[in-house]
């Protein structure tokens, strides 16, 4: 492989196709985040600059000299996608005002600046950059794709890993039920920055997700979207079930779908006959230790269910 690559003429491959998220990327079969990238770019259109954090979607899409991106795209490091996007936005604000004739830049009125990061890149290591970008009011849409662990490095626990999940750094064992914390509430944290729009969405409902991307991009200022995107490898399930599991996370209330505008919850995707969390847990290998018919497993499931019920009540999730 290496000698082929060295001899190859890459000129043609560097040309972009018409799609904005192109086939040929290296994502696994059944990859939830890859669908999120497709929907984000379809909704945003070509007048877009993407700032991507290090992570699965970066690695699968841009092995030099190839790129899956038909939009302008920049990756810098793991924890600064929000800041890089903020810098791009500041540059365009400056260009708009100063109108430099040496740079052939478009008017930024319709320009979309979108930062994208996984749950670890966003809620953990990139939290400072995200908070700063939102607090300063940059006109940037930040999309956190949530596959509930550090998948690019081999399924380590993040602050979005659900209670009870066995990961490589929160393994289930004699003395461990798996991950011992619940998901950090990123939407409320984002909304508390006073940003005009924060919402959750799931890749199981592309129409809803794309509408939210479009809505967010029409709003001036910082916007935050938390999109739920299952990972067949990290969660250990059949790759044909990605959409089903994304949908079950919504139907069990593990991942409520709602919008917050100017700090207030303005719409909730209500659930009729919310399903018990076992429906979502059982198909996934990372939870199999909870189903050994022992007391610890039952208790963990009950704890998770109670956390979900509490949040459902706060949100008015049940129809």
């Amino acid at each position, binding site marked *: 492989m290496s000698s082929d*690559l060295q001899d190859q003429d890459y000129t043609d491959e560097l040309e972009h196709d018409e799609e904005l998220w192109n086939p040929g990327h290296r994502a696994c079969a059944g990859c939830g985040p890859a669908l999120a990238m497709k929907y984000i770019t379809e909704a945003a259109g070509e007048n877009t600059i993407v700032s991507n954090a290090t992570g699965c979607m970066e690695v699968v899409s841009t092995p030099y000299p190839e790129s899956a*991106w038909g939009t302008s795209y920049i*990756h810098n490091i793991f924890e600064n996608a929000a800041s890089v996007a903020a810098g*791009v936005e*500041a*540059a365009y604000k*400056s260009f708009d005002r100063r109108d430099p004739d040496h740079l052939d830049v478009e008017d930024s009125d319709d320009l979309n600046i979108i930062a994208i990061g996984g749950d670890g890149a966003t809620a953990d290591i990139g939290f400072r950059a995200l908070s700063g970008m939102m607090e*300063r009011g940059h006109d940037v849409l930040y999309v956190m794709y949530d596959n509930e662990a550090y998948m690019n490095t081999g399924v380590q626990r993040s602050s979005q890993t659900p209670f009870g999940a066995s990961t490589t750094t929160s393994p289930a064992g004699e003395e461990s039920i798996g991950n011992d914390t619940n998901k950090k509430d990123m939407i409320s944290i984002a909304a508390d920055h006073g940003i005009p729009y924060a919402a959750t969405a799931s890749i199981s409902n592309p129409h809803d997700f794309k509408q939210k991307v479009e809505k967010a991009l029409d709003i001036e200022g910082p916007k935050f979207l938390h999109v739920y995107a299952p990972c067949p490898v990290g969660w250990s399930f059949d790759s044909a079930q990605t959409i089903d599991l994304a949908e079950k996370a919504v139907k069990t209330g593990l991942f409520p779908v709602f919008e917050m505008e100017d700090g207030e919850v303005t719409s909730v995707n209500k659930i009729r006959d919310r399903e018990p969390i076992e429906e979502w847990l059982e198909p996934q290998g990372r939870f199999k230790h909870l189903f050994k018919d022992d007391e610890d497993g039952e208790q963990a499931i009950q704890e998770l269910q109670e956390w979900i019920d509490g949040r459902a009540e706060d949100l008015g999730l049940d129809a």
Partner: protein
Amino acid sequence: MARAEPQEQENPSDDQEVMKGTSAVAKGVMAADPDVVSAYPITPQTGVVEKLSELVADGKLDSEFIKVDSEFNAASTCIGASAAGARAFSATSSQGLKLMSEPLFTAAGMRLPIVMAVANRSLSAPLSIWADHTDAFAERDGGMLQFHAEDVQEAIDHVLLSFRVAEQVNLPALSNFDGFILTHVQEPANIPSEEEVSEFLPPRDPEYTLDPSDPKTMGAYARPEHWTESRYEIQRAMMDAREVWADAVEEFNDVFGRDYTEYGGMLDTYYADDADHIIVAMGSIAGTIRNVVDAYREDGEKVGLVRPRVFRPFPAPELRDALAGAESVAVLTKEMSPGYESAFAGEIKGALYHAESQPPIKSYVLGMAGRDVKPEDIAEIVEDVKTASPEMGFKESESWPQLRPELLKGGDEQ
């Protein structure tokens, strides 16, 4: 032993202003007209970011000023702005430079010509806010150009030269000036106007930007088949920067009438040509050294100074030339690489590896974390280095002349 007399204070001329070093540097930045400024306060740099904020607030500087949450995100926002095509500026010191280190290395790899003023300061621990060169040396291997100023005027001019060279070779630049000694001093200096600077520094014209009408992917990851070439290109750009810098200082002299052209702008020397004993040092300490050199010269002793103004690319050929024929060389340095020796001294020794003339080189670690270096300290060093021989061992080749043994574990028995 020679005794240095204090120099008379010069009065400012008509085209000079007297102001604090940080304010003067900020005004130099203003003349370079950056599109985006993103910086975070840290002592002793803070005056730069404060002054730039003030200039923006007063409508005198038309830049986007990003009030960032940390130095890490100062560098990160500059990376986004620079990739979009903007001229971007930041400033920092010490711990802040450390926090920027990760994104700064990528700015070099992505070939983004961000310019930064670095008010040099020691690194913790122990916490210290005072000047030395530990911070700059810790960033040595990133691929950033590095310049070191002796006085406020040079600190201003180096910022302008940094923009010019960085944007031509597409590498970030650190324009270093010593904390407090230069940041907080009031010195007469000429502040170039925006009109003058525009003659010297054309608007940035990047080959690639993030312009969506011509979409590009920036920051792709490289497998083993490609990474080495990316690093080699940084090395090539650094080597190109030598000539670009030489041209830039020539033109700078034409436009501003300040002559930094000696040794292609790489070295500044003082009575070094015929010197038997040469002191090599960077930054503001050179001012004190000049006084000591004067005193020795009055006594008829051939002592001289060689001051690298450029640290990356390293002025190795110029040092070979400037140090040829010396009986001994004293490297005065405000940094130290624990486990070996002063990185500065080590690099100078390396530069002389191919030289026909190889004088004995002794390093003197001093002026750390703002410890005052007096003329008599330097005179003592000159006396000491006179005795340096090519046969001296590694241990004898390094000295900590200001060390206070009573503060060490075990006390005076050391």
